[in-house]
């Protein structure tokens, strides 16, 4: 039984690993034309914090994705591999001067181990007139470490990685029994899905090892310490395809972050990156029977996670794997 996962970002890799775990008899192949540092996942800071706007087909399913994803990251965090996999625990603050709703999180308040209001004193930690704040403990996944680690695990389990560009998913008919489409933004072209919208984001990675907690301010400003550097962000440019680093965004980000945390002034820049978040409402995780010349190709889609790919990848991977299993079981029986 041959299954192909198209796309090697965090969603593709977690799906491939889950498929290997659940389908003992299957040969799983990851097929992609961009890997590791060329993927959108690489730009992400990787903090587990799904926004209230993240939505799947139903609320129940969405919550299940988020719980499953948290369990996955948490289990991984507790093993000896966690550092090599780039997974660690991280706590921090969200401050807002405008709206109490911003500092609350509809999805994860009961999922993460701690989510509480910030005290008066904590509101004074950062310069600025912060009125509302919360402090919570969650998990960070550094994709620069996770992607190579996951790929190694995948290969160890007998998987194959193929470098190939596709014009259409139909090209895979006859080569595989089921195809799992984890192509993110490329699904717009591959599936002609107009609901997929890139949301451009830019970050600056700086060397600031004294930053030990994350800070969010009114949502568009964030400071997230990772394994190798601190991610300063960010921006959300809806429907922008610009992949160049913009010096204006850069100085805006710098200014906002330094206003929030003055100690960052003068910190050394490691790199600046731009990523196009593949946003779709709802996130598409479903089976499609794609008609081709030789019958129907079973495609399970798993894309459209937007800015919450790293966060929710394992949850959607589990759901997608169940869809693959159902599809494989549903054969004509001799």
């Amino acid at each position, binding site marked *: 039984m041959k299954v192909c996962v198209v796309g090697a970002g965090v969603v593709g890799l977690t799906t491939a690993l889950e498929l*290997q*775990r659940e389908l*003992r*008899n299957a040969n799983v192949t990851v097929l992609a034309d961009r890997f590791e540092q060329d993927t959108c996942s690489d730009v992400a800071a990787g903090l587990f914090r799904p926004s209230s*706007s993240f939505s799947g087909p*139903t609320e129940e*399913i969405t*919550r*299940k994705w988020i*719980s499953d994803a948290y*369990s996955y990251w948490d*289990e991984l965090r507790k093993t000896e591999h966690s550092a090599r996999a780039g997974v660690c625990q991280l706590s921090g603050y969200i401050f807002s*001067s*405008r*709206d*109490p*709703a*911003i500092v609350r999180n*509809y999805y994860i*308040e*009961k*999922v993460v181990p701690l989510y*509480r*209001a910030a005290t*008066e004193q904590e*509101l*004074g930690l950062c*310069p*600025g*007139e912060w*009125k*509302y704040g919360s402090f919570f403990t969650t998990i960070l996944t550094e994709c620069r470490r996770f992607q190579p680690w996951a790929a190694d695990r995948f290969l*160890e389990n007998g998987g194959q990685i193929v470098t190939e560009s596709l014009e259409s998913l139909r090209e895979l008919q006859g080569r595989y029994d089921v195809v799992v489409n984890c192509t993110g933004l490329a699904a717009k072209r591959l599936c002609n899905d107009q609901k997929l919208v890139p949301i451009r984001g830019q970050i600056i990675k700086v060397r600031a090892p004294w930053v030990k907690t994350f800070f969010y*301010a*009114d949502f*568009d*400003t964030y400071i997230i310490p990772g394994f190798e550097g601190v991610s300063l962000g960010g*921006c959300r*440019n*809806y429907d922008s395809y610009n992949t160049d680093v913009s010096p*204006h965004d850069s100085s*805006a980000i710098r*200014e*906002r972050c330094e206003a*929030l945390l003055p100690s960052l002034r003068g910190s050394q820049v490691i790199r600046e990156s731009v990523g196009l978040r593949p946003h779709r409402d709802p996130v598409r995780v*479903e*089976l*499609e*029977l794609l008609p081709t010349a*030789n*019958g129907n190709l079973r495609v399970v889609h798993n894309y459209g996670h937007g800015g919450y790919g790293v966060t929710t990848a394992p949850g959607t991977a589990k759901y997608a794997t169940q*869809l693959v299993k*159902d*599809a494989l*079981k*549903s*054969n*004509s*029986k*001799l």
Partner: protein
Amino acid sequence: MSFKDLVEPECGGANPLMNLGRVVRRDVAFQDEGLAGGRSSFAGGDRELVNEFMGQIAPAPQSFRMDVLLKEMREIDAQNFHRQQQIVPGPAVIDTVASGGTAWVEQFHSEAAQARAESKLSSVWSQSHLTPIQGAVNVGPNNILYTKDFFDVHDPTSMEPEGTSIRQAAGEMLAEGYAARTLNNERMNQSEFIRFMSNVRAGNIRIHGGQVSSSVWENRFDELEASSSKGKEEQLQQKPTEADVQQLQKEKDEEEQRVDDDWAKAFEADKREQDEASDNYNKQFWERLQDEWRTLSESEGQHPWLSEFSDYYDPYKEYKFDEENPMQDIENAFAKGKAFLAQGDIPSAVLCFEAAVKHDPENPEIWELLGFSQAENEKDPNAIAALNKALSFNPNNAPVLMALAVSYTNESMQNQALRMLVRWMKCNGKYEALVPPEMVQVQESPLASSLMGGPNLQQVQELFIKAVQQSPNEIDADIQEALGVLFNLSSEYDKAVDCFQAAVQVRPDSSKAWNRLGASLANGNRSVEAVEAYQRALSIQPGFIRARYNVGIICINLKAYKEAAEHLLTALNHQATSIARSGLNVSSPANQMSTTIWTTLRMVLSLMNRQDLQPAIDNRDLETLNREFSITNE
């Protein structure tokens, strides 16, 4: 808002209540990112309002008058509400676009345009927040204070006069304490009481009628605090506060505020319900998930990635009885079962055989028939277990080996299927000479075969082709069927069709053969011909669950999802009612139904985008689904 600012009596210092003014006036549409951006928009857009507001408020903190302040806020808010309606992008962009030419491209990249673009997207972002903000801000200044107490979910009843007064009182108390230097002591600062009072001042904890009420969040916070040693102190300190509270309760009582209270009450009640519901939901979910994880970690001794050789992987070793078999006490279950088989009622036959085998577990014949029937009942896992049991009594049982090969093929367990086929060949007197000894040896010592692997598909095919060639004039239906199975394994469906067509020529009354022909046609995308073959099979054996299931699969391939669901439900109903047909008490029809059929039905429903029926599938709620698809049970 720092403690120091409030309490130290600086002249003209920032009054914390002024912050509230800022909250009111901030035009959400022009929300910019971060501090710097925010400030500038604030300054730019609402300069006149700011001045107006500032001018009318007395600078000294002690002498502010609540009613004046509230009135101002209400007026400003009314204006602000109207302003908020127009979310207009800056004129600069429109002008540059209108002027045309490539100039606008450059200007688009300029800072001003950037800021506009960003404010636009922030407005997209804030769409989700716009409603709550508007909703809260809309109804007058009371709710401004109210939104500030965002952690507070309970009791909006006695909102404003008490709320503000108490907070004022708290503030004053702390101010006095500070002035009198009694609170200057480091340790006093940290005490529960001070923290409690500052929370009251901030509005996080509300004192209503002498009772301290706090939100769900604050409860947690309080728990944490209470668990510390100073918990008891807090209890004592509450008494003096109560006295003050009663005093201040006689403050002004404006009518408008009551109206706002009602509105706010309703809003809050809703919000509270929602919060509680989602709290409960989340809690349940999380607990359920934790349980699952616990059981999973307990049952899985090994690391999931260390697994048995896939060659010898067999998940169906033990036969799992469908519990509560109601036919357990019937003596001649075996005979009854055979009768049902003759009738073509497969599910009832299965029930009988299960009962029979419980009585007489050492009877290979019953296991055999049970195995065959379960396969036709679309329950391959059970079939494999039963057939293996039969095989344990007689390892050279040819029909059993063939049936096993078929079931393994359906479950995509290629290696096992090939092994069975080779063994089948070996048992068959006519062809056993053809089987090369190495192939057989591989079977005997599974542990040593890690180097050899299982029998090779290619090799087995050659073997069978040789067997066919041995007798070119007559068609050996068994060989043809075996070869057909092999070609299914190698995905050479047209060849498989040829084999099965030969088989049905020899055995036109074998519903099994017709079904296999149909399946091979379906796999080869010859759906229309497949339907004809299935119809033949069903006409011979109307209770042939597997054939009906296959018809459902064809419908899916042809995108006739509704018809597919109907066929699958027909099959499930047939299984569910088998107990009744056997004339016994219905215990749990759910166990009689095939998991495979349910799985495929789930797939069909999601292809139809009927996620609302997912719970029905999870609960195996046949009734609901019958209703949805208008299926009646004759």
